């Protein structure tokens, strides 16, 4: 096993990598960056939404990586953390929603804003992530049963599609970052579907001496 795969097997390391972006905003705020201080809730809102999108896209890459390269130690190491990364995407989305509340002034605009596709897609994405996070508890998996659980968790792909739209709609001009966050998932998923439909011929068993 490569040193990188061994490193990536560590839960502590992955958790650190997940938490660090959440601490990042402290830097410009403590530094007194006037651009950030001018509209801090907008900065925090965008930052946490951005991290949530990255985590969601990241976790959706794990399974296709394993399907496409079943013997690649890195893919196997990453797949140990599917639940951790998926649930943290939900946590970041929850913080993001909290700042949306602060930013837009709470309930009065919250409900009327839901008529706007931009905000409705955000809330639907969050609801999906909430359901997936709750059902990722061991008891819920047992209660649902493997097949139903799996079918339910396919909603993650819908969440990714909605999140991509939501992120793109957040700006006046299409933000290119949406492409580099979500295109890899799309490419890997398509490759995975192709692989599952037309499986690679089984490698010949090693010849015996």
């Amino acid at each position: 096993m490569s040193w990188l795969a061994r490193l990536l097997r560590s839960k502590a390391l992955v958790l650190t990598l997940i938490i660090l972006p959440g601490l990042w905003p402290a830097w410009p705020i403590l530094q007194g960056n006037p651009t950030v201080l001018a509209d801090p809730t907008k900065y925090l809102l965008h930052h946490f939404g951005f991290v949530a999108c990255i985590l969601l896209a990241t976790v959706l890459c794990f399974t296709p990586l394993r399907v496409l390269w079943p013997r690649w130690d890195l893919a196997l190491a990453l797949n140990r953390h599917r639940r951790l990364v998926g649930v943290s995407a939900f946590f970041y989305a929850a913080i993001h929603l909290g700042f949306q509340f602060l930013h837009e002034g709470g309930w009065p605009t919250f409900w009327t804003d839901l008529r706007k596709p931009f905000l409705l897609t955000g809330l639907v994405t969050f609801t999906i992530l909430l359901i997936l996070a709750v059902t990722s508890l061991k008891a819920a998996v047992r209660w649902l049963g493997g097949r139903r659980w799996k079918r339910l968790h396919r909603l993650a792909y819908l969440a990714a599609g909605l999140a991509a739209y939501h992120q793109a709609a957040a700006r006046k001009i299409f933000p290119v970052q949406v492409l580099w966050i979500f295109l890899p998932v799309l490419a890997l998923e398509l490759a995975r579907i192709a692989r599952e439909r037309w499986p690679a011929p089984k490698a010949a068993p090693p010849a015996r001496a």
Partner: protein
Amino acid sequence: MRIHAPKDWELAESAVTPEAIYAARDRRSFLKAAGLGLAGAVLLGRKALGATAGFPASVNPAYPAGSLKVTPYDLITSYNNFYEFGMDKGDPVENANKGWKTEPWTIEIGGLAGNPGKWDVDDLIGKLGGIEQRVYRHRCVEAWSMVIPWNGFALAKLVDFAQPKAEAKYVRFTSFLDRAQAPGQQDESFGYPYLEGLRMDEARNELAFLATGIYGRPIPNQNGAPIRLVTPWKYGFKGIKSITRIDFVTRQPYNTWQRLAANEYGFYANVNPTVDHPRWSQASERVIGGGLFGGRQPTLMFNGYEKQVAGLYQGLDLRKYY
């Protein structure tokens, strides 16, 4: 009617210019006074460019700060939408100060003007009788707002100077084009240079203003040096920056944001709390510098300038002509 009792932290109108002078002399105390950290100091240390004529500006008592809380200088100058220099709010302050020259600057008046020609901005300021200070509310279409002490002159003065012909119905403003200095202009999809327009009666309205300064100093590059439009009853994107041409025309100009997304941004762009943006509410606004829990304040019709401009739009369906 809203009655506003001034709070003790609100700046009096008389405090505006002295604060700016104070800032130039002792920037650290200024920042402390503004209740902010250290970083803004970098901006204040930069040599000012732009149009330097006319300072110190006289204060126009018709447009005082009154009970408005003036936004600190370093927030006004580091939170900018100037896509020619980048899409993020902090990009313009960086990228517009890497050698982009806004002095000297020539502005051309053309189209159906009886007195067409090219003028240096400083000379033009002299010809039009100097500059004055007005404190205006500023409301961005993105639902945030500032209060800015501008220096400059009434657009009506320039219109009179240009002597537009009777057929002229609109004024078209064109910004600069310099792809080497403005990295954002390399994006062809915007169709730069930035373009804006006003109806002739809007341009002649007493509020329409050409700004050459902020807080008693030449306008910084990131805010649209050396000369920009300020129409405080309209959303901020109408306030075209770094103007190089002003033409008098017969047809309604097709302004940049309308061309980019006509379903979201129109020609009029009047501040209107009852007509939402397709993606967010315009009923209220975030006050820049309000902090984490600064909350929102209700947005006023025509950004609070109903008395001065409502007459311009009588009989116009503001829902259709947004």
